[in-house]
Every structure is written in structure tokens, then in C-alpha cells.
């Protein structure tokens, strides 16, 4: 067969049959990604530049939605709540998960059972465990208030209190996030060669020293993965807020995604809602890149 009839692929000639079949086999997945990810992303970018209430066709208004967003106290509060929630959840959840993973890594009896227990919150949906927590934290008859009363602490409002709602949400967020982070930390710990840690102990290093000097630096990429994925997930906090507080009391727990949802499906301001979503998306990208850059620098320093 003449070379000109073959397709060129990475320094190699490929038979037209292989090139054709390769394209045919990726066609479904490419079509789906174009239709369901890339087109909506671009359409969302366009929508954010329009005013659109579903009743009339979108009207192009330039950057007006973004201008409105940065002057809208409610929108800015929603982003602030989102940031507090994310930092408040990710930091304690990561530290606690690492501690739990280190304990689970001891290969004592029954660790498999504990691992299953810690993963349980991840198996159930946010709605399912949300309603369970809603009962537990109920100000009038919730068991948690009963528990506090045994220690002489008076009834708290928790999710119904303007000042306690967000911290309560964060506590429940930590509770659930741990399931995921523990599993990943455990996998990372079990990937560290036993000989490395033994060597440190042979040299007379204390457990704490060998943990901070040997284990932690090797675990750095895993830690960064846990943090970055947790930040990305938690910045999109939505389900638990809808179930637990509906964004209240007042707007005390209205997060960015909930604000965007309300703008779209209660106020029918599709353009403004899209702009909020785009700003959150950009914030997620910037934060992830910053964190990845930071981890790159840290691992270079360790070398």
C-alpha cells in the first residue's frame, strides 16, 4: 500500500483501517463530551453575558451580570459562606483523617471493620444522612441537646440559630469528608516501603520524628491530592445546605451554588445565575492551580 494512503500518527504510519476504527470507537465518547460538557460550558459562558428569564429570548448585556455580582451584598455573602465552609471543613477533616489513617495502618486486628465504618458516611446520600442529622440536632427534641443537658448545658439552636448554623454544617461536613480522605491517606501510607520507616527507627529516631521526617514528606503528594479534591468538592456545597438549613436562618448558610440555584429557579434570572456559576468555576480553577503549585514547590524543597 502506498504511504500516502496511510494516516500519520506520532512518527509512525498507521493503516487506514486502524485509523478509521480508532476514530469510530472514540466517536460516541467525543460526541457525548461535546454535547454534555463542552457545549454547556460555552453556552453557560454566553448566558452569563445575557439577561434571560426563559420567557423571552436571551438579551446580550455584556458584563452587566458580573458588575452586578461584585456589587451584590447577598452574592458576596454567599461566596464568603462558601469559603468559610470549605476552609472550616477541609482543614480539620484532613488532619483528623491523617490521624485516623495512621491508626488504621497499624495492622492491628479489626482494622478492616473500622475502615468500613469510616467510609459509611460516603455510601449514603447527603439527603439521607442530612435528615438523620436534622433529627439529631433538632433544637426541641434532638438527642444531641439531650446529651448536652446531661452535662448541664442548656438547649442550643444549632441549625436554627443564625450564629450556630454554619459551624454545625461544618461539623457535619467534616464528619462526612473523613470517609473519603481516610481511604486515600490509608492507601498512601500502605504504599510507603516498610524498610524506609524501619531504617529511621534503627537509627534511633523516635516514632514522632520518623513520622514527621520520613512518612509525612513521602505522603506529600497524597496529602495534596486529598486537600485539592476536598477543596473542589466542598466549594460546590449544595445538597447538605438544602436539606439541613435551606440556606437559612436568613441567609446565614446560603452558599454560592445555592445562591445560583435560587437565582435560576426562583427568580428566573438565568443569566445572573450563570454568571455566579462561572465566577465559582474560575475561583475553583485558580485555587486548585495555586494548591498544585504550592505542592510542587514543597516537594522540590524536600528533595
Amino acid at each position, binding site marked *: 500500500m502506498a504511504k500516502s494512503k496511510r494516516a500519520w500518527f506520532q512518527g509512525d504510519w498507521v493503516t487506514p483501517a486502524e485509523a478509521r476504527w480508532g476514530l469510530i470507537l472514540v466517536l*460516541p465518547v467525543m460526541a457525548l463530551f461535546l454535547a454534555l460538557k463542552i457545549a454547556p460550558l460555552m453556552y453557560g459562558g454566553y448566558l452569563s453575558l445575557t439577561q*434571560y428569564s426563559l420567557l423571552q429570548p436571551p438579551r446580550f448585556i455584556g458584563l452587566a451580570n458580573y458588575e452586578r455580582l461584585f456589587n451584590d451584598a447577598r452574592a458576596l455573602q454567599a461566596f464568603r459562606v462558601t469559603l468559610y465552609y470549605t476552609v472550616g471543613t477541609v482543614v480539620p477533616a484532613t488532619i483528623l483523617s491523617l490521624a485516623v489513617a495512621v491508626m488504621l495502618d497499624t495492622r492491628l486486628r479489626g482494622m478492616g471493620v473500622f475502615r468500613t465504618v469510616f467510609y459509611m458516611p460516603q455510601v449514603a446520600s447527603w439527603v439521607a*444522612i442530612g435528615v438523620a442529622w436534622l433529627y439529631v440536632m433538632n433544637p426541641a427534641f434532638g438527642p444531641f441537646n439531650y446529651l448536652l443537658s446531661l452535662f448541664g448545658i442548656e438547649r442550643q439552636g444549632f441549625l436554627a440559630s443564625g450564629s450556630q448554623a454554619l459551624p454545625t454544617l461544618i461539623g457535619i461536613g467534616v464528619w462526612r469528608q473523613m470517609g473519603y480522605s481516610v481511604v486515600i491517606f490509608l492507601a498512601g501510607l500502605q504504599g510507603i516501603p516498610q524498610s524506609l520507616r524501619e531504617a529511621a527507627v534503627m537509627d534511633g529516631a523516635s516514632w514522632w520524628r520518623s513520622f514527621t521526617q520520613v512518612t509525612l514528606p513521602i505522603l506529600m503528594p497524597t496529602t495534596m491530592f486529598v486537600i485539592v479534591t476536598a477543596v473542589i468538592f466542598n466549594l460546590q456545597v449544595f445538597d447538605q445546605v438544602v436539606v439541613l438549613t435551606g440556606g437559612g436562618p436568613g441567609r446565614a448558610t446560603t452558599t454560592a451554588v445555592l445562591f445560583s440555584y435560587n437565582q435560576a429557579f426562583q427568580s428566573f434570572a438565568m443569566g445572573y445565575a450563570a454568571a455566579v456559576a*462561572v465566577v465559582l468555576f474560575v475561583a475553583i480553577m485558580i485555587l486548585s492551580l495555586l494548591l498544585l503549585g504550592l505542592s510542587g514547590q514543597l516537594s522540590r524543597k524536600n528533595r
Partner: protein
Amino acid sequence: MSNLDYAPPAIRQTRRALIYMALIALSGIILAPFLMIVVLALSSPAEVFAWPPVLIPDNIQWQNFSDVFRVTNFGRAMFNTFVIATVSTIGIVLIDGLAGYAFAKMRFPGRTTMFLLILATLMVPVHVTIIPLFIMFRNFPLAGGNDIFGNGGFGILNSYPSMVLPFLATAYGTYLMTSFMRMLPDNLVEAARMDGAHEFAIFWKIYLPLAAPALTVIAMFNFTAVWNEFLVPLVMTSTADMKVIQTALADFSDQETVLWNLLMAAVLISILPLVLMFIVGQKHLVRGVAVGGTKG
């Protein structure tokens, strides 16, 4: 932490006891809400509001589980959830299987570009695409009373496709499948081609079965994700007969009251299939979660 084993026996035992105590205490906190679900699901309406809280119901109310289906149309919601979770899982396994095989084993122009394009969408969260998708589905031409320009009706909203389609394009699944297919030997393709096997048959008869472990992970992940999904059905559907489990759980409460015992019975019924699947496939699932964390 096996280096603890070098400590003297007395210290070793104390440490062991401390670890167990810490883990048991934490497990108590993790399990407490699940315990409440089980207790309330078996309680009478009065016991729900008892003070101090009831931990063991006087008469176990088994009929709560049948009342769940009598008081609301929870059966329909479970059926809907099962349909969209199953259909999307089959779809994803086939699509990602094909894509993974093609990206890992076939050579064709534009392969790298297309793969990177898919990987880039890993960064695109659902919340950015959900409003545009809602409008696209609403304006879907010639469906749900729409004319050819997509005006006049509700398109494919309130249908199974509107809840299945958003899950079919998952970069994570495609990425996982491609990595797995890359680890399978290349010479099987060449040998099969020598024997004159059809390109599609090589994929379908040789590589798809070999990729079963990775496909199991993707299938379990997706089934759980769709079963538990709240935002997509919330946005895409508004009719009672299209409710799924996560949106139907709201039916057990109105402005005034919450039927806590029935709500928890429904929650228990909805979690059970996932817990069973998790226990059976735990090894696969944990490995799947861990792949991302250790490869990075």
C-alpha cells in the same frame, strides 16, 4: 507505624489500647446518626418526640416500612431511581470501555488532543453545566410539545433521558478505563489482527472482558453516584411521577410536620442496596478510590 513493634511489650500494649479506644470513640460518632436512622425507623410517632430520646422502641413498628409505600409514592421513586442508575451505568461502562480501548490501543489522528480535551473537563463541575443543560433540555427540538426550533413546550425535561444524559460524560471513568487498558498487553491486538479478527470484535471479545475489574469499579461508582444524586433530578424534573428517591424523601414532611419514623424507614430502605453493594464490592471500590490518590 509497624515500628511501634520495636517498643517494649508494656508500652506496645498501652499504645494498642489507646489506638483501639480512640478508634472506638470516633466510630461511635460516625455511627451515631446511622443508629438514629434505625431506631426512628422502628419507632412509633410518639417515641420520636420522647424526652429523653428513646433508644430501644417499646414495640418495634415493622409496619413503618410498608407505610412508607402507602403514605407516599415511594415505590415509584425507587423504580425511577433504579431505572436511571441502571441505564446510566450500562451506558457508561460501554462508552468508557470503547473510549479507553481506543485511546490506549488504537492509533489514529487527533488521539492525544481528544484525550486531553476529555481530561480537561475533569475540572468542570456540575454546577456550571446544570443551568445551560436545563435550558438545552427544555429547548430540545420536537420533544415534549416543542416545535422544530425548540419552542413552546418543555423538551426532554421530566423524562428519564434528562436525568441519565448528564452522567454519561464523566472524564474520571474515561481516564480510569484508559489507564487500565494501557496496562493490558498490546500483542493480543496484533495476534488477533493476524487471525483476521474484526477491529470491533477485538475490543468486544478480548479487551472488554479483560477490563472487567476496572469496569466493576466504574459501574459501582456511577451506580452509587446516580442513586444518591440530588441536584440533577431537582433541576430536571418537577412532576410527581418523575421523582427519584432523593427528591421523594421531602414528601415525608410539609411546612408543619415531619413524619420522622416513616422518613427514616424510607432512608433505611434507600441506603440498604448501596450498603449491600459496598460490602460485597468493598475491595474493588476502595482500590478505585485509592487509584487517584496514589498515582498523582
